[in-house]
């Protein structure tokens, strides 16, 4: 006599669980242009690699004889899988069962799904499509009381950010804890049109007198532009591709180091266009993204956060195969000046680099922090100072290419707190604690006012000072390590990446990662 009958019963339950919330709810879900949680997992991970955990967990019903009559599966589907051959843990909300609410239907499965990756030191991918953790206020009547808000494993959920890479994809209307689970990640993506994110949805907001659609309240376009999420994409398939790509640059946990990838791009490759890409007229702008793409290994550039904090471009790339983090100025936005948002965005990338020990390359063209009334109203100095702290607290190897400007306090972001930093200047570089044009007025006021022709006096002083601004003069005083031929920049960066690799130190960051 074998155990076949029991295995048959197990198989029956697994089949029932595969039906999710039932054909009607699945059809309605698909009708909204969304994939089911199982289709999502299949689309995300390597084919056939998903090993489910808790496959029959749910809410069974039995008849008087003790025979199972139905099984509503738990609204979390989770398990181990592989992405590009590397192990990960995946957890997905099932919207077709009670709207994917993370409300303690099967609290133990939720806790398991959220903590397993941290315990086993593997990346976690969350496919979030659920409402808050509070569920429905109807629950209070069943309970007969209220309770202090808490999520039992939330300390671990947040601590996991200092241990393993976490990617969160917002794939539906996510509120409350669902929204926090999207944000509590190193990389978050929403899908335009089918996903929204908010502290509370339109019905709750309507009580405050605001009538808004969920798209108006928390669509991806809003959150990709305010930095609540990192990127928005057009389809769920694109979101899965982004998740896989992001993880390809990172180690499995902070206890390991990112592996060197294959590179067929010669480290000594030169780029002729770089000798003339920076306009000689200092008021004219140029495009930074093609410069980044030409410097890194061909095809390795992954920009992150393109829609917000636009004066800083951030992303991941490879140099001679080694994964690195990139910061680069975009002169098309405030001339590359750091705004409050740009500062927040820089913090996010520098903290990611420090946590997972990715060396940083900073392509610097920063005229300063943004000045003016709007900039002050946005708190630019508070967030800017936080960004400088994030940079100076970071200890990963750091290489700055001084492309053009570095002025004022924001210009301090050219180097970090590592003893292993390198700075190479292009001949187009210019720098100083103050820009000359504004500074002359303040420093030479008496002399200018006393002159017979004040305008001529100002111009004469400016010309005199501008002659001092050549980076060659700084290099003569060893104020910058080296001025380089821009065409050779890639070879310098590849040598930096190779020098930096053995200096990376695995282990927990000194400060807990804050999402």
């Amino acid at each position, binding site marked *: 006599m074998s155990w076949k009958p029991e295995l048959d019963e197990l198989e029956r339950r697994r089949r029932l669980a595969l039906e999710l919330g039932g054909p009607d709810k699945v059809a309605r879900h698909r009708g909204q242009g969304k994939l089911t949680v199982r289709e999502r997992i299949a689309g995300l991970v390597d084919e056939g690699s998903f090993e489910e955990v808790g496959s029959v967990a749910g809410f069974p019903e039995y008849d008087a004889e003790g025979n199972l009559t139905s099984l509503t599966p738990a609204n979390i589907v989770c398990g181990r899988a592989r992405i590009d051959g590397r192990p990960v843990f995946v957890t997905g909300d099932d919207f077709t069962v009670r709207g994917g609410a993370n409300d303690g239907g099967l609290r133990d499965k939720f806790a398991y799904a959220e903590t397993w990756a941290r315990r086993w030191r593997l990346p976690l991918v969350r496919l979030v499509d659920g409402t808050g953790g509070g569920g429905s206020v109807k629950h209070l009547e069943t309970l007969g009381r209220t309770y202090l808000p808490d999520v039992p494993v939330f300390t671990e959920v947040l601590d996991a950010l200092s241990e393993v890479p976490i990617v969160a994809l917002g794939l539906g209307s996510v509120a409350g804890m669902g929204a926090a689970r999207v944000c509590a990640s190193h990389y978050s993506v929403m899908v335009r049109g089918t996903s929204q994110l908010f502290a509370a949805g339109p019905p709750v907001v309507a009580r405050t007198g605001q009538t808004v659609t969920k798209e108006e309240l928390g669509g991806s376009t809003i959150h990709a532009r305010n930095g609540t999420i990192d990127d928005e994409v057009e389809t769920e398939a694109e979101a899965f591709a982004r998740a896989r790509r992001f993880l390809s640059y990172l180690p499995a946990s902070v206890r390991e180091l990112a592996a060197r990838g294959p590179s067929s791009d010669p480290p000594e490759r030169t780029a002729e266009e770089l000798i003339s890409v920076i306009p000689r007229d200092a008021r004219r702008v140029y495009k930074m993204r093609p410069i980044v793409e030409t410097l890194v290994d061909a095809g390795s550039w992954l920009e992150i956060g393109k829609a917000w904090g636009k004066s800083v471009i951030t992303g991941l790339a490879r140099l001679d195969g080694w994964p690195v983090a990139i910061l680069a100025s975009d002169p098309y936005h405030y001339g590359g000046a750091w705004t409050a948002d740009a500062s927040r965005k820089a913090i996010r990338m520098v903290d990611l680099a420090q946590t997972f020990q990715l060396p940083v390359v900073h392509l610097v063209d920063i005229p300063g922090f943004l000045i003016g009334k*709007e900039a002050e109203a946005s708190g630019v100095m508070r967030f800017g100072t936080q960004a400088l702290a994030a940079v100076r607290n970071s200890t990963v190897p750091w290489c700055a290419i001084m492309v053009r400007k570095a002025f004022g306090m924001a210009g301090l972001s050219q180097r970090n707190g590592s003893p292993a930093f390198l700075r190479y200047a292009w001949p187009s570089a210019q720098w100083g604690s103050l820009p000359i044009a504004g500074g002359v007025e303040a420093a030479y006021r008496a002399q200018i006012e006393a002159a017979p022709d004040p305008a001529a006096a100002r111009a004469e002083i400016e010309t005199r000072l501008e002659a001092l601004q050549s980076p060659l003069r700084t290099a003569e005083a060893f104020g910058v390590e080296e001025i380089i031929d821009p065409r050779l920049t890639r070879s310098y960066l590849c040598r930096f990446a190779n020098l930096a690799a053995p200096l990376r130190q695995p282990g927990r960051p000194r400060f807990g990662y804050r999402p």
Partner: protein
Amino acid sequence: MARNITSPLAGQLIARLVHEGDTVAADTEIAIVESMKMHIPVSAEQAGRIARWLVAEKSTVAEGEALLVLED
């Protein structure tokens, strides 16, 4: 359909590069906004015909402020 082209940044509109009635291709530079002493071009995201300007040269513009109306 008419749509606005907005300024991606705050600053002073120092030059209008297209005239009302002009037809522009996507990525055509339509204006220069000065910020942080830099001359920053603003481009049309889509092709269209310039219906009318909403902002005069030398005006201060806010981030996201509509500069002109573009028609298909």
